[in-house]
């Protein structure tokens, strides 16, 4: 990682933390606004660049306990049919229910790859298969992955899965197969076309709008504005990974 990228991420981090405050009015913005923004932002045939950094905002106050629309949309989008073996089935998003032992406050939130700026999975990968795209999306290049699973051990969020069995009926836009590791791609195939990830779309279609997708570097963009108004909580902030997925409160 170059010096300049460090300083860039530094300034991003500062912005997240210094500008905490009230105001959630922005959350009520129509979904259409976001789509229009993105169509301009992403392009199909230009290499991705660090002009953008894609991220997610999770408003835990809007995330409905017992709702798993984001999970099923993800499964549908990527053909994660599962083998009816919950221990080993691939999960790119999980719904996690939390309860504060003291106050009893309950929280339900989706947990997926946090698309870290300093991803531990990339650090430990011996082949370079785990990598971070210029625009911040953390991926597995399955053509290079040898299935060693170091990345799965390194990930503090248990966001990755290994495919143990031969698969069939894969989707054209989401090749998957035995012997390699996989995880949330932030729906990279959609992002490259200027669309939002399937989970975000499903959450918004369900009327919950707990998930917002956007460009963390676009100062005028919806995501950056939300993060100006709210403290974007990083999961495991102690690890200083500068995650691209931020939660309203945890």
């Amino acid at each position, binding site marked *: 990682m170059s010096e300049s990228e460090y300083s860039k991420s530094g300034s991003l981090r500062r912005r997240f933390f210094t500008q905490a405050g009230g105001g959630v009015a922005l959350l009520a913005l129509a979904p259409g606004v976001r789509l229009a923004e993105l169509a301009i932002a992403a392009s199909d045939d230009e290499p991705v660049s660090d002009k953008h950094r894609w991220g997610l905002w999770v408003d835990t106050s809007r995330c409905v306990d017992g709702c798993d629309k984001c999970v099923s949309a993800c499964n549908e989008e990527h053909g994660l049919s599962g083998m009816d073996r919950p221990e080993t089935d691939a999960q790119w998003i999980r719904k996690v229910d939390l309860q504060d032992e003291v106050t009893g406050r309950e929280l339900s939130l989706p947990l997926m790859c946090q698309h870290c700026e300093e991803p531990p999975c990339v650090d430990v990968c011996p082949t370079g298969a785990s990598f971070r795209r210029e625009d911040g999306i953390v991926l597995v290049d399955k053509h290079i992955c040898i299935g060693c699973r170091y990345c799965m051990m390194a990930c503090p969020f248990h966001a990755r899965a290994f495919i143990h069995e031969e698969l069939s009926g894969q989707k*054209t836009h989401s090749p998957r197969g035995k012997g390699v590791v996989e995880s949330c791609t932030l729906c990279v*195939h959609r992002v490259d076309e200027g669309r939002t990830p399937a989970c975000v779309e499903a959450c918004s279609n369900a009327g919950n709008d707990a998930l917002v997708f956007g460009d963390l570097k676009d100062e005028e963009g919806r995501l950056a504005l939300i993060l100006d108004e709210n403290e974007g909580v990083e999961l495991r902030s102690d690890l200083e990974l500068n995650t691209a997925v931020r939660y309203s409160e945890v």
Partner: protein
Amino acid sequence: MRRTAGKRLARGWIAGLLLGAATLCIPGVLFSDVAKPQIPSARGEQCVEPVEIMRRDHFDFMKHDRDTTVHEGVRSIKHSLAGCIDCHASRDTGGQFISINAEGQFCQTCHTYAAVKIDCFTCHAAVPATKVSQSP
């Protein structure tokens, strides 16, 4: 003395060449009963490269371009595997697409003939995307 040695050497060379040429012909003679691959016909006007070049270099093109998609996010690559399937997958008599890697199908005929084994279709869909899976 020297000259005869030179001549003998030259004669040896020629004999060697002839023998070499004969050896090259043997596979053709011995295996002429192995059927040439019957390549299913394609849709579309023409391939993404001239056919003679595609026959030789298709795998290098694809391996090059996949990095462009996976690492740089460029979706409009010329040698897309999904693209090959769109033009080269055949349908059965019922109109259903057949896996492009199945016995006798496009990506398989030549490979059986040339004893090549590919793993692409353990992950990649081997039939064109249906309308359903393409919808947002």
